[in-house]
């Protein structure tokens, strides 16, 4: 078997999600190559070549790949596909955008968001927002897969010395172009890779009060998240959202503040190692999954927590 991994990167550096995807590929077994498609992305390819157990890195460095437009990257993956039995990408917004497009061009089904590898044809994946686990067997000759990164440990960042081979670009499809991006600026770790996450819900009452979470997050070097209720209420932007319809996180410590614990939120954080819930409603369902529950008004608890940690 031979596996191609589509690297997640920002041209300058390799993103952590790629490391989890390598672990999923190792579980399938076989030769592993990594495709780095981007613009001036040589340093990302270099980082990929140092990952352990990689046979080679395919580098497609061309203007049309700079923003990971699926319309341009999909033909590149299709051109490389003949040599591989499995093509994997992390289940990030880029991976989920690309893989089904490639699959349709190859006339195969895609397998979304795998949480485990049973064998080379059989995979486990969550459905119904993680309330149900499904095991499926694919009869397609080629498997197009996105990987739920929180379910696979990250591989080491060094130890390998794969060759970096340039491959031909496939051109601009000319049907989609990048205009701009507006990324949330933060000095703290990204939600999906942070070791500690502190999230606020509707109980925070407004966006300004999220500063109280920021203050605790600052001390713990934690990322700040939110429930869908807090996003729908307009307290914080959607990229804060943890849950079925937002991001899936599995940090060492997850602190849920003023979050009732709707099924849709639990789907995004229930794999966290330790869960803390702070809520003044002792009947809130969040306490049913919390390792440590504190029944207390969050506006009293957060300043105390900040002082206790400082």
């Amino acid at each position, binding site marked *: 078997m031979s596996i191609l991994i589509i690297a997640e990167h920002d041209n300058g550096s390799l993103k952590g999600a790629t490391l989890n995807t390598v672990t999923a590929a190792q579980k399938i077994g076989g030769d592993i190559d990594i495709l780095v498609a981007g613009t001036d992305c040589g340093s990302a390819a270099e980082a990929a070549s140092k990952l352990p157990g990689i046979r080679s890195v395919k580098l497609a460095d061309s203007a049309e790949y700079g923003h990971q437009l699926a319309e341009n990257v999909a033909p590149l993956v299709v051109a490389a596909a003949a040599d591989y039995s499995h093509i994997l990408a992390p289940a990030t917004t880029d991976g989920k955008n690309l893989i089904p497009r490639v699959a*349709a061009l190859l006339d195969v089904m895609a397998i979304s968001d795998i949480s485990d590898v049973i064998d080379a044809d059989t995979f486990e994946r969550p459905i119904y927002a993680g309330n149900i686990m499904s095991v499926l067997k694919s009869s397609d000759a080629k498997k197009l897969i996105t990987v739920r990164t929180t379910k696979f440990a990250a591989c080491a960042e060094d130890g390998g010395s794969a060759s970096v081979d340039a491959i031909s670009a496939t051109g601009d499809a000319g049907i989609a172009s990048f*205009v701009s991006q507006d990324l949330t600026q933060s000095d703290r770790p990204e939600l999906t890779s942070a070791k500690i996450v502190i999230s606020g819900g509707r109980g925070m009452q407004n966006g300004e009060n999220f500063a109280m979470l920021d203050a605790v997050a600052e001390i713990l070097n934690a990322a700040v998240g939110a429930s869908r209720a807090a996003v729908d209420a307009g307290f914080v932007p959607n990229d804060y959202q943890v849950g079925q319809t937002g991001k899936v996180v599995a940090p060492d410590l997850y602190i849920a503040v003023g979050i009732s614990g709707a099924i849709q939120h639990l789907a995004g954080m229930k794999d966290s190692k330790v869960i803390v819930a702070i809520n003044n409603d002792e009947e809130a369902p969040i306490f049913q999954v919390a390792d440590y529950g504190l029944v207390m008004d969050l506006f009293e608890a957060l300043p105390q927590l900040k002082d206790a940690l400082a």
Partner: protein
Amino acid sequence: MKILVTCKRVLDPYIKARVKPDGSGVNLDNVKMAMNPFDEIAVEEAIRLKEAGTATEVISVSIGGAKSEETLRTSLAMGADRAIHVVTDEDVEPLGLAKVLKKLIEEESPGLVIMGKQAIDGDSNQVGQMLAALMGWPQGTNVSKVEMGDGEATITREIDGGLETLLLKTPAVLTADLRLNEPRYASLPNIMKAKKKPMDKKPLEELGVDTVPRQETIKVSEPAARAAGIKVADVAELVSKLKNDAQVI
């Protein structure tokens, strides 16, 4: 310009999914069903584009069993002009669904297709991208804002780190994310009117599309429940537990 929107009938999002006793699938007998919430947002967006004068007709499509008609009637009550029901009792996979939609697009020639970013049952998040690929069209997935221009659409997408704006040539496929809009409730007069709107029924097998499944479900199960822990009395005890017992801070 015509807009094609899709609406899937799924388990009501406020009902907890349960596995059938034999582990062969999810129990959908005698439970409340509803339109996929992301599809509701797609239908709403199409109707708003018609109200703004950008679109001339909104056609809603559902591929499923006899009761999918109810879901289509909901879309008509919201404001879609007519519906196409591709009737099948098969559980068609995303690739098959994309092929069926391609067939309908060839008949209807819409200028835009809007669908939910994923259905909340299978959570696959594939059909829109696959349809765009089969048509050779651009795709705007997870969109939170749509501005139609002349032969093009400027769309804003929800991405992992924030927002991204793209310019797509139309026709295109868009998939709706949560913040695109807030779907309207159908009023009683509109529910009555919807009963008279046209609904075209097409048996799946008459479309001549390959929908043979590529995947076999081996089993479904409910994940082990997480056990509830302990209640702490105050912040000091919490911090002490996290430091000494859990050792996570």
